[in-house]
């Protein structure tokens, strides 16, 4: 193999070759730092055996032919992580007060808080991105037939995650508490109320009473930032566990390779 020419670095930046006979008695600062890091990791691993789990999670076999479509699931997860992180910081400023306080706190985040406009926009647009990605991911799994045996439970958990994500969109829409949020929530709650038999009780549960009242907003806020995110995080964990345990399915256009022994057995 031809050797690449070394980059034209000034002499002072070139790595110093080891002296002959140097067996690491004297460590440079970089080696010392690396050694220290290895010690920390060893200390943790000796007590938790986590390296086996990490190897099981990250260094697993994947089929031939996987492609960019297979990244939609992790893309959705990163959209969720974006929502979680920006949401935590928005919660530091947000005030779920029906009597004008909620709108004022959103106005403060948007107009006055340092980088507030950016963080709020990341949360707002990230919500749409997450919905789009989760539907694309579902379409990929459906059209590739990846929901079939033995991955049915992964699919079912994914459907629950889809519903929870839509519920996040519904509960989050009210929080800015402007005219659009208010009327969209009135309409959304009443759509829930049109379900026969349980509809009236469902809409009363969402509103915390027969009319949109003082506790409706705080109820939506609690559902939006505590109940559903916890469920989503737990179910993403279960989803990932099943993916790692069962492996990724091959794309449908890939033919299964025949084992040589099987070919002989047929003869």
């Amino acid at each position, binding site marked *: 193999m031809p050797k690449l020419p070394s980059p034209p670095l000034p002499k002072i930046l070139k790595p110093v070759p080891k002296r002959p006979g140097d067996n690491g008695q004297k460590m440079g600062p970089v080696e010392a730092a690396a050694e220290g890091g290895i010690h920390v990791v060893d200390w943790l691993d000796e007590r938790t055996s986590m390296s086996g789990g990490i190897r099981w999670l990250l260094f697993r076999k994947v089929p031939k032919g996987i492609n960019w479509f297979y990244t939609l699931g992790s893309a959705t997860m990163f959209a969720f992580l974006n929502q979680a992180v920006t949401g935590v910081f928005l919660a530091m400023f947000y005030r779920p007060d029906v009597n004008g306080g909620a709108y004022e706190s959103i106005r403060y985040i948007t107009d006055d808080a340092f980088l507030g406009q950016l963080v709020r926009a990341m949360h707002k647009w990230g919500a749409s991105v997450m919905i789009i990605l989760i539907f694309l991911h579902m379409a990929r799994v459906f059209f590739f037939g990846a929901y079939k045996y033995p991955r049915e439970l992964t699919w079912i958990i994914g459907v629950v995650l889809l519903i929870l994500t839509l519920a996040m969109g519904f509960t989050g829409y009210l929080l800015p508490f402007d005219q659009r949020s208010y*009327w969209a929530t009135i309409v959304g709650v009443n*759509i829930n*109320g049109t379900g026969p038999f349980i509809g*009236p009780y469902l809409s009363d549960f969402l509103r915390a009473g027969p009319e949109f009242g003082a*506790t409706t907003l705080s109820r939506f806020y609690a559902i939006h930032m505590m109940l559903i995110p916890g469920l989503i995080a737990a179910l993403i964990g279960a989803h990932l566990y099943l993916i790692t345990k069962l492996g990724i399915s091959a794309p449908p256009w890939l033919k299964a390779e025949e084992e040589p022994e099987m070919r002989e057995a047929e003869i």
Partner: protein
Amino acid sequence: MPGAFEGETVTRRRFMNVVTQGSGMVAAAAFTLPALGFALGPLFSRVPFDWQVIGPPGDFTKTTYTTKVLTIVQGIGEAGYSIAYVRTRDPQIDTEPVDEYNRWVALSSRCMHLGCPVRFVSAAQRFICPCHGGVYDFRGMVAGGPPVRPLDRFYTRLNESTGMVEIGPRYSVNSELERFSPRDPGQPLDGIGQYLYPARFDTSSGPPGHP
């Protein structure tokens, strides 16, 4: 019994299992049930009931509606307001039986499709909803679009001592203008509708004598 001493009906291991899991369940129920009850409690709450003065009888005519702002929920500012369209009852067109609670017809502005606010357009003599195109005629009956029942109404009465018209709680009507306890928009009350969409647990929000 194997694994048990003389005279015992359950093994000690099994007894231990039952006690441990049972106490775990009791501990979990001790915080789950109150929390659940707390979250579901509003389903059973009573609707506060009050009569609000909307003006002297001279404020209202038979031929057009007067807009009145009501407070539906106290203490939450603008979000608690709602609008009623009020006119004097006209025996020529109002065929439903008259009693002391409907001498003034007070229609709720809440669209019976999904709850957007309807607007009375006097040129067309129609109520029109901006959201999905629901249209109601002068009496609040459905004239077109998706609404499933006529506009909700409010009880009205004349306060004899002050001589003022007062407006009371909301009630829902079917297409015959029969009174029902208040339901949410989107829930029809004709035919089997009243059975598919049951009333709230607490229906005592109407005036006395009302079912």
